[in-house]
C-alpha cells in the first residue's frame, strides 16, 4: 500500500501493481488447481485394493472391463496413466458412471442435476444473504432491542435445528396436512406441462419447501457475521463523523456502515460458494430434489467412483476459482487494497 505525499502522484503505478497481483494470483490458482487434479488422480489409485477394482466396480463383464482398462490405460505405468488422465480430462472425458447405465460422468453431473442444485442453492443462498445482511444491519443498529434479540434468537434457533427435522416438519405440515407444498421431486410427476412458463411455475412451486429449509439454515451464519461486522464498524470514527454530519440514519446504515461491513461477508460468501455446487445432501434427500448432493449420496452408496471423482474435481475447481474471484473482487470493494 502506498501512501502518497501531498504532491499526489497519480495511480498509474498502482494499477500496474494490481494487474501483476491478479496475474500472480491467477498463476497460483492454476498451480493449486493442477495439484488438485493430481491429488484427484492419486486418491483414486492409492485406495486400498486394486485401483482397477475401485475404478471398475463389481459386476462389470470382462469385455467392458477390458474396454475401460484400455480406455484409461490402467495396464500402463502410473506416469503414462497420469498423462492419459490429463488428456482425457481436457477433452472433457471423466469416465463412465457405473450406476447410471454407464453414461458419461459429465452427463451424469451436468445433464440436469447441476442445474437443479445450482438453482435451489443459488436461490436459498441469495435469499439468506440478502435477509441476513439487511436484518443483520438493522439488528446491529437497534442493538439490544426487541428486534435485535428477536432476530438473533430466531435465526440462531433456525441455524441450530437439524435440517432434516425442519424438512420433515415442512413435509408433514405444509405438504401433507395443508397440502400447499409438494412432497417430492422438482416437477409434478406425470403432469404434462403446457408451456415453458407452466414448467417454471411448477418447478418453483416444488422448490418452495427445500428453498425455505435451506434459507432458514443459511441465514443464521450470514446474519451473525453481518451483525458483528456492523457493530464493529459502528465503533469507527467515520460513523461518528457521519452522525455529526447529520445524515439520515438510513444513509449512515446502508451508505456507510454496510459497505464496510460487507468486506468480511465477501470472504464468507466465497467460502460458501462451493455449496452452490455440492448441494445440501440432506435437504435434497428429504425433498427428493435430484441434485448433486443426492448424486454424491447415491454414488457413495453404490461405490460409483468415476462420478465421485468427477464431483470432487468439479467442486475443488469451483472452490479454487471462487477464492481467486473473491480476491479480485476485494480489490474493487476495498479501494485501500492495492498491490
Amino acid at each position, binding site marked *: 500500500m502506498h501512501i502518497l505525499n*501531498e504532491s*499526489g502522484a497519480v495511480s498509474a503505478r498502482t494499477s500496474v501493481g494490481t494487474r501483476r497481483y491478479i496475474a500472480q494470483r491467477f498463476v497460483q490458482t492454476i498451480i493449486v488447481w493442477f495439484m488438485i487434479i493430481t491429488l484427484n488422480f492419486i486418491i483414486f489409485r492409492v485406495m486400498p485394493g486394486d485401483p482397477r477394482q475401485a475404478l471398475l466396480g463389481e459386476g462389470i463383464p470382462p469385455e467392458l472391463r477390458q474396454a475401460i482398462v484400455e480406455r484409461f490405460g490402467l495396464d500402463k505405468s502410473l506416469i503414462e496413466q497420469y498423462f492419459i488422465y490429463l488428456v482425457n480430462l481436457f477433452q472433457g472425458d471423466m469416465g463412465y458412471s457405473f450406476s447410471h447405465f454407464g453414461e458419461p460422468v459429465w452427463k451424469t453431473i451436468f445433464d440436469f442435476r447441476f442445474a437443479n442444485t445450482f438453482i435451489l442453492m443459488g436461490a436459498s443462498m441469495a435469499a439468506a444473504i440478502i435477509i441476513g445482511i439487511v436484518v443483520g444491519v438493522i439488528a446491529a443498529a437497534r442493538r439490544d432491542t426487541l428486534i435485535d434479540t428477536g432476530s438473533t434468537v430466531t435465526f440462531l434457533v433456525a441455524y441450530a435445528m437439524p435440517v432434516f427435522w425442519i424438512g420433515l416438519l415442512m413435509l408433514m405440515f405444509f405438504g401433507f396436512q395443508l397440502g400447499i407444498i409438494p412432497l417430492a421431486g422438482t416437477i409434478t410427476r406425470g403432469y404434462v406441462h403446457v408451456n415453458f412458463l407452466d414448467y417454471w411455475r411448477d418447478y418453483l412451486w416444488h422448490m418452495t419447501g427445500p428453498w425455505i429449509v435451506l434459507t432458514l439454515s443459511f441465514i443464521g451464519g450470514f446474519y451473525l457475521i453481518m451483525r458483528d461486522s456492523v457493530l464493529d464498524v459502528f465503533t469507527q470514527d*467515520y460513523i*461518528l*463523523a457521519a452522525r*455529526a454530519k*447529520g*445524515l439520515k440514519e438510513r*444513509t449512515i446504515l446502508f451508505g456507510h456502515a454496510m459497505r464496510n461491513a460487507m468486506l468480511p461477508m465477501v470472504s464468507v460468501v466465497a467460502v460458501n460458494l462451493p455449496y452452490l455446487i455440492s448441494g445440501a445432501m440432506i435437504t435434497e434427500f428429504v425433498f427428493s430434489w435430484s441434485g448433486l448432493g443426492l448424486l454424491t449420496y447415491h454414488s457413495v452408496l453404490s461405490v460409483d467412483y468415476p462420478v465421485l471423482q468427477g464431483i470432487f474435481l468439479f467442486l475443488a475447481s469451483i472452490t479454487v476459482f471462487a477464492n481467486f474471484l473473491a480476491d479480485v473482487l476485494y480489490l474493487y470493494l476495498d479501494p*485501500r487494497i492495492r498491490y
Partner: protein
Amino acid sequence: MAVLEVENLKTYYYLGKESVKAVDGVSFKIEAKETLGLAGESGCGKTTTAYSIMRLLPENGRIVQGTIRLGDEEITALSEEEIRYLRWRKASIIFQYAMNAFNPVLRIGAQIVEVIREKEGVSKEEARATVSDLFDEVGLEPKRQRDYPHEFSGGMLQRAIIAQSLACDPMLVIADEPVTALDVIVQNKILDLLRKLQEKYELAVLFITHDLSVVAENCHNVGIMYAGNLVEVGSAKAVFKHNLHPYTSKLIGAFPSVIGEKKRLQFIPGTPPNLLNPPAGCRFHPRCPYAQDICKEKEPMYREIKQGHYAKCHFAGELSFEVIE
C-alpha cells in the same frame, strides 16, 4: 449575540447506576469570528463538551443540566430528528484523525457531496461544484475529489476535512485537536488556513487541544478545563500572562517554550481525579500546592475576577504565581 452560549452544562456518563461526571457545570460563550481554545489534560471533559454541543454523545451519555444555545436555538431539549437537522447547518466538526473520519471505501468528494445534498437539497452537479470551490479554497486540486481517503496524505486529508466542515456554511466550527496528528510544518499551514477561513466566513471556532502553544497562537480566548470543570476562562493574553488558577499556572509551566532561556519544566504532582467519585470541594485541591481547608470542603464559585477573565478558585486573584517569561 453570541454564536454559542453554554450555561452550566453538566454531562454525565452512566455506568450501570453510577455516573461519571465528565462535564460538571461548564459555562462559556463564543462570538462570531472569535476562537475559544479549550485546553486541558486528556480526560478532562474537552471532547465531551464538544460532543454535547453536537449532541453526539454515546448511548450512556446524557446532558443532565444546563443549556446550550447555538445561535437562537436551545439545543438540549431538541428531539433527535430536530438536532439532526441542525447538525452541519449550524455547527460542524473538524475531526482529529482525518484518516479515520473519512469512510475509507467512499470517494472523498462523494462524502462531502452527500452532506451538501442532505442539507441544501441541491442536485449532485451543484453539490460537486460547491465541493470544487471548497477544494480550491482549502488548497486542494478540485479533481482530487474523486480520490479515496487512502490516496491523500495527512495534510491533504486535514484540508479536505476542513473543506467538509465548511460545506454547509455553519456558524460554529468545532475543531477537535485538528493538527495533533500532523507534523509541525503541515500544522502551521493548516492553522493558517483555518485562521484565514475563519476571517472570511466569520466563523466562531471552538478549538479543542491539549497543546497550549497552539492555543496561544490561534485563540482569542482560552478556557482551561480540569476534571470536568472549566477552571479559568479569559483572553489568551490574560490567561497566559496573568493566570488566576493554580492549575493553569501549573499547566503552562508544564509546557516547554521554544524561545527564551532553558529552564526546568514543572510537572503537576498526582493524577487527575476519578470522575466516578470526584473529591469534595475544589477538584484540584489534592494536587494544589496552595490548598487550604476551605478548598477541601467548599466548591469554589466560578466568578469574574477581572473584566472578561473568569476563574474557579477560592483564592483567585489573591495568589501570585511564578510567571513564565
